[in-house]
């Protein structure tokens, strides 16, 4: 187990030794791993690091190793979405974020495990087996970016990228005791991110500390004409690294402490809010009355979009192909054998929700409820600067505990999905431990006001010790 090393310490190590040595030490740690966080390591990582050493690269991430979720396209490096249907697929192009990372000098270590097509809260639905939580190998790391969070927590990568459609960066960040940001919708180009639910998802960074999140955002955010929902807006995220929340107005949505919340989690989040008060911020309760309908609305929209987005996986152009004597039979068998159970359930439900006779009842209704959820955020965030609550209602649950009951897994996303419906930014950072398992505090901001969210998170980190605790060896 290597120590948790942030970007600034990595750069120092590179200056003292070399990028190649730093990358080699991470590859060695990955080689000994027993958490199944990586699906693939990049066979050219050392070569890339050597290139940084000899080329005198001066990019902001020169030689910094990074792990990438396996739904983000990487030229020449297998990208599977943890699905059998994409087994052997090697993208012929880089995602926008990968182009940016390479230009900044980052060294890609490999691709991380996830719930198949990012559909899950536990990383148990991967075709490549579950990832284990570094704090307790009997528990899930959260999902769907479980690999990206677990490898950072285990010291197998200093930073990583995930994607967040309904909590898929924040949930595993909370369960693994690291920091994860879901940026404002439109902040980061989705070009090259394999779509699950494109009106909801954003790529997001994971790290052991808030400053590294800001450093990554400075590299990967920005306008890209290849994503028509990308927004042209300049921001320097690292400017937000100030230990100052004096006068910050915090809203606490009472609905985020609803049915099913663990008492100890609730207490830790209130302790955190109390800490903010000590630091000079003020708080008040706010009401977001449509929160209880967000989950159903989210799942209907996500499944509907998924049923359309995943139509492209038909065995014709890439990936797995089953035999069939005409195209329809070939495609139906390919998809039946190539997709896992949860992906098929979501495709079927999405197809059903969009089909004649049900479109208005399910899909259109969900889009209208989405408007109401978004208005809840608009109203609440007109009165306060940020909203705070628990990222997840409980600490990480046990492997196998929920996987056979899809609805019980969906319910775990109750505090994360409303944020994606509204498109606002949200961060999860460690705020304490329950029976040795980390708990995440969620801080939500206004559209494109990542800097207030990051400043609030940074200030908390500077005044607490939670982020310094590390998992022991997982046997």
């Amino acid at each position: 187990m290597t120590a948790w090393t942030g970007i600034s310490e990595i750069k120092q190590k590179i200056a003292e030794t070399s990028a190649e040595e730093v990358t080699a030490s991470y590859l060695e740690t990955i080689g000994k791993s027993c958490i199944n966080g990586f699906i693939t390591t990049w066979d050219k990582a050392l070569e890339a690091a050597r290139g940084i050493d000899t080329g005198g690269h001066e990019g902001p991430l020169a030689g910094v190793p990074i792990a990438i979720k396996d739904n983000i396209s990487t030229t020449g490096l297998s990208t599977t979405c943890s699905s059998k249907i994409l087994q052997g697929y090697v993208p012929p192009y880089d995602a926008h974020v990968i182009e940016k990372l390479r230009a900044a000098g980052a060294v890609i270590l490999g691709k991380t495990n996830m719930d198949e097509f990012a559909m899950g809260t536990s990383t148990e639905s991967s075709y490549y087996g579950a990832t284990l939580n570094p704090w307790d190998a009997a528990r899930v790391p959260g999902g769907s970016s479980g690999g990206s969070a677990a490898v950072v927590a285990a010291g197998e990568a200093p930073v990583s990228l995930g994607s967040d459609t309904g909590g898929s960066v924040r949930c595993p960040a909370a369960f693994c005791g690291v920091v994860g940001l879901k940026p404002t919708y439109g902040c980061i180009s989705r070009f090259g991110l394999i779509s699950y639910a494109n009106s909801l998802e954003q790529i997001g960074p994971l790290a052991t500390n808030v400053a590294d999140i800001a450093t990554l955002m400075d590299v990967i955010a920005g306008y890209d004409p290849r994503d028509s929902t990308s927004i042209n807006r300049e921001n320097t995220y690292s400017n937000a690294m100030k230990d100052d929340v004096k006068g910050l107005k915090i809203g606490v949505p009472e609905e985020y402490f609803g049915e099913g919340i663990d008492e100890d989690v609730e207490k830790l989040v209130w302790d955190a809010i109390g800490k903010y008060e000590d630091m000079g911020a003020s708080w008040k309760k706010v009401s977001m009355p449509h929160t209880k309908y967000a989950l159903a609305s989210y799942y209907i929209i996500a499944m509907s979009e998924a049923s359309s987005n995943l139509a492209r996986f038909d065995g014709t152009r890439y990936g797995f192909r089953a035999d069939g004597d005409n195209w329809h039979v070939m495609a139906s068998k390919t998809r039946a054998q190539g997709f896992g159970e949860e992906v098929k359930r979501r495709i079927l439900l999405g197809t059903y929700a969009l089909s004649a006779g049900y479109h208005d009842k399910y899909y259109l209704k969900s889009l209208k409820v989405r408007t109401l959820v978004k208005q809840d955020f608009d109203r609440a965030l007109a009165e306060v600067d940020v909203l705070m609550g628990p990222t997840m209602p409980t600490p990480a649950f046990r492997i196998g505990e929920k996987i056979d009951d899809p609805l019980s897994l969906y319910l775990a996303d109750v505090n994360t999905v409303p944020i994606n419906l509204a498109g606002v930014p949200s961060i999860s950072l460690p705020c304490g431990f329950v029976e040795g398992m980390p708990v995440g505090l969620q801080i939500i901001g206004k559209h494109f006001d990542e800097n207030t969210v990051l400043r609030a998170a940074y200030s908390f980190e500077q005044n607490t010790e939670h982020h310094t605790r590390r998992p022991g060896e997982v046997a």
Partner: protein
Amino acid sequence: MITKEEVEHVGWLARVEIDEKESDVYAEKLNSVLDYFGQLDEVDTKDVPPTYHVMDVVNVFREDVVKESMPQDIVLSNTEHKKEGNFKSPRIM
């Protein structure tokens, strides 16, 4: 309630083969989720417009300029099923 027959029909629409044994299991699991979705019926959405997208961007255009495409051999590099520069699939009709 989604019936076993509807599950098989939706499976065909989505091009996911479902055999008779599986359709029972799917119907049960899908119904528990659809039951939960039914709670949206209690929300009053009269006069509420739908939100397809959270940002105020509509009709994003680009200049109609011809650019180089990805080379054909690269496009075809992820399949063994190809012939004379095309993807090869079983007959459609």
